């Protein structure tokens, strides 16, 4: 293993910004994990697939609306449509998950391990349905009509070349405009969400349920609705993450969710699970650490860094960087 410090120090600003961009995406996905965990103490293993479906919704919208030939206002309009499509798709999947894979278990007060197994099962089903979409549409004789969308079911589906990604320089540092868009919009979403959970009635309901479900329901908070809202918000944020991810990396496939999901969960734990601001911090720290680490150690160690960081943080500070709490009360 060679340590390449020279490269690292020469490119520190660029490495940091790219790292922050990845971190912002982790953070948006991490929100889904952290909120569901805060309210249900459940690791929503299938949240990674919520994200994955969002990336395909984005990709297909771009293809359907012909973004390759568009530019200017037209292109912006298509991108906004793609953003909404991704958010809608992810939200629908998240709500479906809650309805089918979790609610029956929550109703029966099943052990958490069982809910996790159900989540793992749902995750397999969702990923495989996407991976087998060519075969499934074939059963209905739709594979010809949908050929652009269902072909290459098992490999990377790319939208490279649709977007120009201009770079600009500030003080000699070359910055990708996409990175800036990703970071700014992700952080803006997080701030909005944080304010929403803090101030709105629904947000208060979520926090109350996270702290004490029984008392919350006695006080008139509808637990089922609150849980639905939690999944919905997590899904919407995963949709935004999917959109930004596609802007940045252009390609997706049916298994893209898994590793990203694990890392996003790592980010959530890193920041302190159940804690919204922790998710943001955890995501950013993870993204930057990963990018720095791979610059020094080589890209093949990228994924190891994430896990080593997680293990270390948990050993030093078991409740994560900012501590656990969705409502601030469970410090």
């Amino acid at each position: 293993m060679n340590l390449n410090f020279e490269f690292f120090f020469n490119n520190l600003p660029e490495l940091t910004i790219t790292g922050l961009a990845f971190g912002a995406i982790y953070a948006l996905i991490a929100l889904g994990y952290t909120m569901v965990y805060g309210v249900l103490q459940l690791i929503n293993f299938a949240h990674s697939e919520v994200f994955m479906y969002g990336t395909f919704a984005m990709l297909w919208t771009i293809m359907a609306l012909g973004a390759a030939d568009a530019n200017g206002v037209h292109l912006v309009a298509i991108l906004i449509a793609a953003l909404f499509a991704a958010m809608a798709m992810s939200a629908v999947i998240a709500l479906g998950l809650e309805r089918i894979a979790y609610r029956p278990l929550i109703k029966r007060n099943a052990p958490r391990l069982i809910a996790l197994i159900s989540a793992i099962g749902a995750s397999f089903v969702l990923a495989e349905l996407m991976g087998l979409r060519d075969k499934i549409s074939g059963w209905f004789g739709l594979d010809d009509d949908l050929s652009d969308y269902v072909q290459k079911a098992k490999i990377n589906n790319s939208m490279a070349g649709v977007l120009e990604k201009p770079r600009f320089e500030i003080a000699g540092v070359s910055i990708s405009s996409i990175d800036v868009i990703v970071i700014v919009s992700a952080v803006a979403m997080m701030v909005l969400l944080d304010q929403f959970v803090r101030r709105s009635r629904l947000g208060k309901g979520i926090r109350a349920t996270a702290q004490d479900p029984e008392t919350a329901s006695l006080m008139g908070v509808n637990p089922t609705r609150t849980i639905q809202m939690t999944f919905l918000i997590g899904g919407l944020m995963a949709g935004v993450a999917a959109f930004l991810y596609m802007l940045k990396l252009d390609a997706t496939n049916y298994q893209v969710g898994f590793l990203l999901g694990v890392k996003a969960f790592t980010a959530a734990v890193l920041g302190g699970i159940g804690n919204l601001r922790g998710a943001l911090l955890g995501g950013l720290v993870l993204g930057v650490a990963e990018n720095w680490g791979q610059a020094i150690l080589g890209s093949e160690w990228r994924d190891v860094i994430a896990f080593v960081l997680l293990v270390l943080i948990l050993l030093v500070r078991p409740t994560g960087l900012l501590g656990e709490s969705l409502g601030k009360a469970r410090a």
Partner: protein
Amino acid sequence: MKKLSALPKPAKILIWFLIALFAYALPLLELPILSTPDSDFASVLFTVSIYCLVALGLNIVVGYAGLLDLGYVGFYAIGAYTVAILTSFHGSWPLLLAIPVAVVVAMISGVILGAPTLRVRGDYLAIVTLGFGEIIRLVAVNTEWLGGNKGINNIGRPPNLGDEKTGLFEVPHLFWGDGTVLLDNKDTTKFLIFGYSDAVPYYWMGLTAVVLVLLADILIKNSRVGRAWEATREDEDAAELMGVPTFKFKLLAFSTGAFVGGLAGALFASRQSFINPQSFLLLFSILYLAAVVVGGQGNRWGVLLGAFLVAYLPERFRGFEDFRVLAFGLALVLLATLRPEGLLPPRRTVRAKQLEHELDELEEGAEPDHDGEETARA
């Protein structure tokens, strides 16, 4: 089960002996309903035996002690890699010497991982172990000393008994014709030659390991150690206040699990003769966990059934290969929803359910009259 436990002891021993005999003879019988048309039946059975071993080990961690381990494949990998390194890549140890070392290395790694992490909360343990499993694999991928992505081949095989050509004796397989069953003298298994093509001796080796681990499981579970594990799972604080050193017992469960996982990995490596990091994907940790939960965590027979199903069904139905994972995922969701305690829940859970049922039916009536001493077990 009820009837079985009521039998006198010699009859019980006889029945268990027959069951074991059947298990050992399974690959020779080539039963048409069980056989796997698209892959070598004995190889499939060997895989099943390895899954059984893994499931028994993981059941100690998850089922008995209640510790959620999502990176169990890491210990499996440590066992496999230790054997690979010692017998082939960096040494030429005999396998029988390498296996104990592999098992001890796995156990030590269990202690090293467990000592700091078993103090943190249960859900975090899941994630730390998940990370651990991935780290082990990624380190193997990226380290030339461990063979990198290419992996390691020529891993040592178990020693042969008897002459290489014939073994001590040859055991014929059965041949099922149309309505007739014949001894097939052309298709024989040499006792006991660990070669390339015939997987039957490896299956016997795997099955023997399963039987030994199963016995150890029964002995340990039915002792202070087993009770301490269960008490810790049920209520850690209360267990501690009843004098159970819970941390010590959690660590013991974790390292015992690692021990069994390492053993499974070592046997796997010696059968495959070749390993690479692809054999130790995170997916396997999840499959192992699924085997434990599907079968009924906490019940050793349940997890054996689960292991059998998880390892065997995909091989039996290779024709539907594309839809294997999909069906598996659906099965997990359905199982969690419809039968959350697994296919074969611990007998006590069954009893509790029955009692609940009886009470519901009877509202009031004579309570089931057990005599304490008669039903009490040693």
